[in-house]
């Protein structure tokens, strides 16, 4: 019963959290955006005392329910472990192992030092929610989008506007690599030993483990009823049941209730009492925590099906000039989106979960390649620009790295300023008049002046009024110069109001 409740809750949380990373229309965030905000690390970075307090109280009451129900990385491991357990001869494959306290508390100490010292790469690499976010945005989201594009392909043929196709593109190799590495590590550990990752590496797990030792409700082995069959121990993903001594290591128990479900003698109970130490054993059968897994798998199946059908290619047109891809200019100061306040706030609060990157509808945000801010979001304008009506990233950020702003506020936040590169400008290279940058500037920060002041008939070149520029990148994106735009945005270290 408890196990069923846990499974259903976990499946729901997992699916909805994952969908946050998949939805590119901005509709789900309105309803379920809070699911990212109750994740532990984002709440810590956002300094959201209420959520942290609630999570601690829940843990104090019920143990590490968080790890079993809310943490998406934990649920992924349960799924993998469940599949591994379906293999022949692997049904009751776990056994008790002593805690590796030096490792888990070492990791936690390292993590805390990293937060304090501002080594954001360490923080984002270890935060379980961010780790899952990267997996979702790098692996699930492209598949989801390809599936959507397939539907859009058919919708177009049916003259329906229900689905529209969306770009699928490589946002950052390093982040993809780290996500793959994380998935591989977590996957192998879960396949072989269940929740090993949560009890050796994960700093959130270690922290909650410290609290859950003292939780009110605990699983207890009734030594009188226990027959010593060890089924419970053999089914404990956390390897935390020491049946010889009728003990459960509550710092490692994630409250999955598999043991209670397995025991044929009712020897394991979830009770708000001190455990009675008597002799007994526990009995187990095979676990069946399949809900989240089955859902995840059916979703995966859908993605794989979608991938087999290729998204539609270019339309047939009459003779089009080739458009060279734009290249990313070398910005001295990285551009962070409006609402981020500046590089410092971003670096301190972002866990690199990629939620904003997944949500950006304009192809502007992508994970950073710079070591200091690795995997944290950065803006660039090869595929689009930071459009005036859009504040998606600021709405979805669970960690307070990008504060919520309104489109009206956005018009006055200067994230950077435009720089003109004379040599690239088509006025000089092609000898044609072009006013693309001026025409698309939302704040009127660009005007055109005669290239040669004494010659009235000369072509006009753009000049930038930095005081008005908000760094939206419209000029950079729409500049016809390729591969490098003739006007590009240099970031402001600290955002300011124009």
């Amino acid at each position, binding site marked *: 019963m408890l196990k069923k409740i846990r499974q259903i809750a976990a499946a729901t949380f997992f699916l909805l959290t994952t969908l946050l990373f998949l939805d590119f229309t901005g509709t789900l965030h309105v309803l379920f955006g809070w699911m990212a905000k109750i994740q532990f690390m984002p709440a810590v970075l956002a300094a959201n005392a209420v959520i942290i307090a609630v999570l601690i109280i829940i843990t104090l009451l019920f143990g590490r329910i968080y790890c079993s129900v809310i943490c998406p990385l934990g649920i992924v491991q349960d799924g993998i472990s469940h599949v591994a357990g379906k293999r022949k001869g692997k049904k009751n494959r776990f056994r008790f192992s002593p805690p590796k306290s030096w490792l888990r508390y070492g990791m936690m100490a390292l993590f805390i030092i990293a937060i304090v010292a501002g080594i954001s790469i360490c923080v984002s690499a270890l935060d379980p929610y961010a780790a899952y976010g990267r997996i979702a945005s790098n692996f699930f989201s492209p598949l989801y989008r390809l599936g959507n594009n397939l539907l859009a392909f058919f919708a*177009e043929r049916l*003259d329906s*506007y229900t689905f*529209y*196709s969306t770009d699928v593109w490589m946002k950052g190799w390093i982040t993809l690599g780290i996500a793959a590495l994380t998935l591989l590590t977590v996957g192998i550990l879960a396949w072989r030993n269940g929740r090993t990752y949560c009890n050796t590496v994960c700093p959130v797990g270690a922290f909650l483990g410290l609290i859950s030792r003292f939780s009110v409700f605990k699983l207890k082995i009734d030594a009188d009823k226990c027959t010593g069959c060890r089924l419970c121990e053999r089914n404990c993903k956390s390897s935390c049941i020491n049946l010889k001594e009728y003990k459960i290591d509550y710092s490692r128990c994630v409250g999955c209730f598999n043991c209670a479900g397995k025991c044929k003698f009712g020897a394991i109970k979830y009770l708000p009492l001190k455990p009675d130490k008597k002799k007994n054993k526990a009995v187990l059968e095979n676990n069946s925590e399949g809900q989240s897994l089955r859902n995840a798998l059916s979703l995966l199946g859908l993605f794989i099906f979608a991938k087999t059908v290729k998204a539609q*290619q*270019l*339309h*047939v*047109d*009459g*003779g*089009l*000039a*080739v*458009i060279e891809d734009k290249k990313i200019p070398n910005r001295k100061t990285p551009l962070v989106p409006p609402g981020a306040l500046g590089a410092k706030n971003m670096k301190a609060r972002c866990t690199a979960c990629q939620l904003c990157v997944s949500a950006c509808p304009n192809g502007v945000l992508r994970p950073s390649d710079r070591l200091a801010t690795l995997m944290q979001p950065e803006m660039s304008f090869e595929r*689009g620009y930071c*459009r*005036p*009506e859009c504040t998606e990233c600021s709405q979805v950020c669970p960690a307070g790295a990008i504060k919520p702003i309104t489109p009206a506020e956005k018009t006055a936040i200067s994230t950077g300023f435009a720089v003109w590169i004379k040599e690239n400008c*088509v006025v000089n290279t*092609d000898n*044609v*008049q*072009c*006013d*693309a940058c001026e*025409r*698309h500037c939302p704040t009127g920060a660009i005007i055109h002046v005669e290239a040669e002041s004494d010659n009235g008939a000369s072509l006009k070149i753009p000049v930038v009024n930095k005081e008005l520029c908000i760094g939206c990148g419209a000029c950079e994106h*729409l500049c*016809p110069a390729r591969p490098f735009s003739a006007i590009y945005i240099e970031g402001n270290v600290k955002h300011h109001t124009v």
Partner: protein
Amino acid sequence: MGNDNKKEISRRNFLKLTGVATAAALYGCKSENKVSAEGGAAGEVPADKMTYRINRNTGDRVSLLGYGCMRWPLKQKADGSGEEIDQETVNELVDYAIAHGVNYFDTAPVYVRGWSEAATGIALKRHPRDSFFVATKMSNQRGDFDLQSALNMYRHSLNELQVDYFDYYLLHTIGGGDDGIETFRKRFIYNGLLDFLLKEREDGRIRNLGWSFHGDVKVFDYVLAMDVKWDFCQIQLNYQDWQHADNVRNINAEYLYGELVKYNVPAIIMEPLLGGRLARVPAQAMSIMKEVHPADSPAQWAFRYAGTPDNVLTVLSGMVYMEHLQENIRTYAPLVPLNEQEYETLEKVTEILVDSDYIQCTECQYCMPCPYGIDIPGTFGHYNRCVSAGKILKSANDENYKKARREFLVGYDRSVPKLRQANHCIGCAICGTHCPQRINIPDEMRRIDLYVEQLKQKMDF
């Protein structure tokens, strides 16, 4: 006041008739599944009822439906390296056309990225030389106007079309350039090119010599009055351009046609459908037409209009799909000339068309390729299709705002890749001189971009 009321009513009609509009939008791809006694869209395609006009100069018996070869279908190359002509389909279309009495084929060296002549030549080679008339052009409007490259173009056309004489040969797009008359002289007089072509006519390698006209009416008058016997002249004629050409980019066909009659020069008609726009008329216009002939499509009306005047030798249509070909053959097999009442109906339709904010683009591709990659005809085409379907919003408070907004934006991305849309136009105006309809392309691009921004930003307008 009365006028206001009328508008009110037509707007209501137009909302009611969205269904008809959809039919109109679909019309471009499919023939309707209706049969009527005369000229229905579906049903038998007669093989022996084509209306023919006699060329007074040569006695040629020319089919009233002429095949325009500027829109041949393309396909992806097998190795994925780009596009090529879908020759198999071209052959099928040509065979079908000839089997059903079409015998006039009009191409040019610049059509379909320069591939049209060869494709047309291959398809026609499979038929006896005396079973068709082939027309091509001297397309020296771009470049330095020197004689040698013109002669190369001329000979290249003979090779590509695999013929040893041209039935019809045209000086292509007369009337262009900033100073039209001077441009004409540069292209044909100073370099001796016209003398060469007249000599070719004497020698029988050109059976009929004429010219196609776009643009400055002074040039039209000048060339027509020259001391040269013109065997024919190709003009843009359709019910909208008859009296409602804006006389900047296009001249009233009423005038042009009248002059040709005066000079006894047979007329060949191009753009009878305005690049398909007259086949996709707005719902109000559609309903007026359907009241008179429920089974007839707007395209049929337009073709009957273009074919009715006696001095018209043939009406060109760039047919891409078999269905278009079949429908047009039906319309002219035989032609039922328009009567007074029908003329009046089209007069009303024209009023609606002139009032709506179409961009006068016929998607002829002359402006392409844009050096900055914009898909100009694609962008205009999308906009015009939305005009036809009555889905351009007048204000953000329109009843159908949400739906029309989504359809415009989603449809835009579907029709035109993002990097080729109007917002990427830099306003260099290099395209300006190429457009035979004299559209101010950068201005129209701005207009569309502004509209798109209004929708994207959900502005009040």
